[in-house]
């Protein structure tokens, strides 16, 4: 940890400094401090309503924070529209409900942002898209529409869609919790592969503890809008410090 603190600013992918957020009068995030170094893989867990989604949605400014700072790739998020558009091209996001574009074919879902945001020629964007569809193991579905795919396939398409933008940071918000059990592993496999490749900073909200143990550099436990505990997966699961963490882990393992 102390080593990380001495690193230069630009070695951080994300810094959150005293981040606070309210929904109306409801104080949803309280003094969040979190530094993520380039290439680090972080798993965020915690009970429902603890503010996990809100934290990672603040990183690409889908939610606005009221106090504190968020610095992404060395740039503080101000809410300026042009800055945001630029910043978001480097920050990919996968949602719980995939949010594929149902009116576009799978291939068009993948090439849309590269063509319209990165201004990449169509043929090149399609070649890249096929490459990523192969990586998530569904190149044969390219011409179908999202409505014709299973949940697990849709989430893999969503991951490929983000990867097509070649992001430096990937955010995952419970990517497997809307899936039937037999589809969870096909999505996790893709994510594990991605994590093992290295190079990409990953923040993942998930309750898949196996995934956390296997790939995470750090596990963050949140409750009531605060970071309660932060540790290596090994320490976190085998030697949880706070009472809330212990309770949470016992509940997860119980069910």
């Amino acid at each position, binding site marked *: 940890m102390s080593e990380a603190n001495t690193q230069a600013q630009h070695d951080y992918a994300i810094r959150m400094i005293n981040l606070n957020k309210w929904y109306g009068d409801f104080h949803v995030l309280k003094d969040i401090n979190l530094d993520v170094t380039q290439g680090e893989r972080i798993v965020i867990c915690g009970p429902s309503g603890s503010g996990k989604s809100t934290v990672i949605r603040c990183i*690409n400014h*889908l939610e606005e924070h009221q106090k504190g700072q968020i610095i992404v790739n060395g740039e503080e998020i101000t809410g300026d*529209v042009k800055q*945001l*558009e*630029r*910043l*978001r*091209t480097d*920050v*990919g*996001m996968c*949602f719980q*409900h995939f*949010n*594929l*574009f*149902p*009116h576009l074919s799978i291939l068009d879902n993948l090439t*849309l*942002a590269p063509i*319209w*945001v990165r201004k990449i020629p169509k043929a090149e964007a399609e070649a890249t898209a096929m490459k990523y569809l192969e990586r998530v193991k569904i190149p044969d579905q390219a011409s179908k*529409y*999202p*409505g*014709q795919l299973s949940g697990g396939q849709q989430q893999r398409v969503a991951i490929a*869609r*983000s990867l097509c*933008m070649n992001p430096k940071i990937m955010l995952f918000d419970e990517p497997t919790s809307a899936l039937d059990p037999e589809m969870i592993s096909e999505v996790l496999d893709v994510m594990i592969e991605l994590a093992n490749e290295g190079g990409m900073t990953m923040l993942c909200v998930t309750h898949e503890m196996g995934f956390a143990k296997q790939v995470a550099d750090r596990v963050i436990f949140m409750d009531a809008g605060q970071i309660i505990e932060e540790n290596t997966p090994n320490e976190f699961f085998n030697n949880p410090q706070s009472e809330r963490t212990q309770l949470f882990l016992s509940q997860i393992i119980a069910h």
Partner: protein
Amino acid sequence: MYVTDKILPELPAPSNSKGVVHWLKSNLFSSPVNIVFTFLGLLLLYKTLPPIIQWAFIDATWVADTREECLGEGKGACWAYIGNRFGQVMYGFYPPAEYWRPNIAGILLIALTIPLFIEKMPRKVWLGAFILLVFPFIAYYLIHGGFLGLSEVGTDKWGGLMLTLIISLVGIAAALPLGIILALGRRSEMPIIKSVCVIFIEFWRGVPLISVLFMASVMLPLFLPEGSSFDKLARAMIGIILFQAAYVAEVVRGGLQAIPKGQYEAAVAMGLSYWKSMTLIILPQALKLVIPGLVNTFIALFKDTTLVLIIGLFDLLAIIENVLGSDSSWLGFFTEGLVFAAFVFWIFCFAMSRYSMALERKLDTGHRN
């Protein structure tokens, strides 16, 4: 315990059609009440259909040069009367020697539009933009003229089906984009834009079209500087466009509200701007959802064009009702005129409704929310 190694073969789905008799039995004669209604229906058809067919087709006079040929014992509808006044029905008071000009404009429009329906046609967007942005000027030059060698035919001479189509097409083509912008504005997070759009929409929805037209024709000139003449048709058109845009806006807003927030989030999360997210992701889905509502609005607009009569413009219905109706050499065939007008309106409205159904089917990508 039960175990099987045998995987059953895939069989074709059973056919649904079980023959005419089965259909009749299950649809028309399934219960005593049903049987009674079936016979009442047949009786009604028997009483009304033959006389109508007799009047409209069998006893009808199709060609005639004078009114007298249509009169007499056992004579039915006098369609010859429409045929004799066909020029006026189609073009109003447009000089017959110049009919070729609107004809060319119409043919050009059809020729330009057909490629839009060809599946693999490249550069469709440019063609569409050409039709919307350039063609109106070509059409105006052709139909109105007044420069570059074409004699001027003022809008006061335009009429008939031509005028109905011009008002409707311009109205639809302008009200749709304006309505979409208003709908987006109404959902804007910027308070000023939002309130301007809300006030605009609620104002235009709150007044009857008749009074809009009346204001456009009688009151607007009072506010314009002395001596400036502003074409009557243009004024009516602006009134119709603003009026219909308010309705389109509300229909489109319904569609926008039905699109899950995640769609917009996914779009902007990839770095798309607000306008790109709207035009590439949100609007295509929202508009697809509201095709029935939009077509409903357009059909209403098409029929509402008949109201321009009250400000002295002679659309198809007005020509038939007021011009042909008071023509002393063909007195007494009012019914035929109205039936013909109704038929023409029905053809266009029915075509719009069929097209919208086909469009819905074509755009269906199997997504159910």
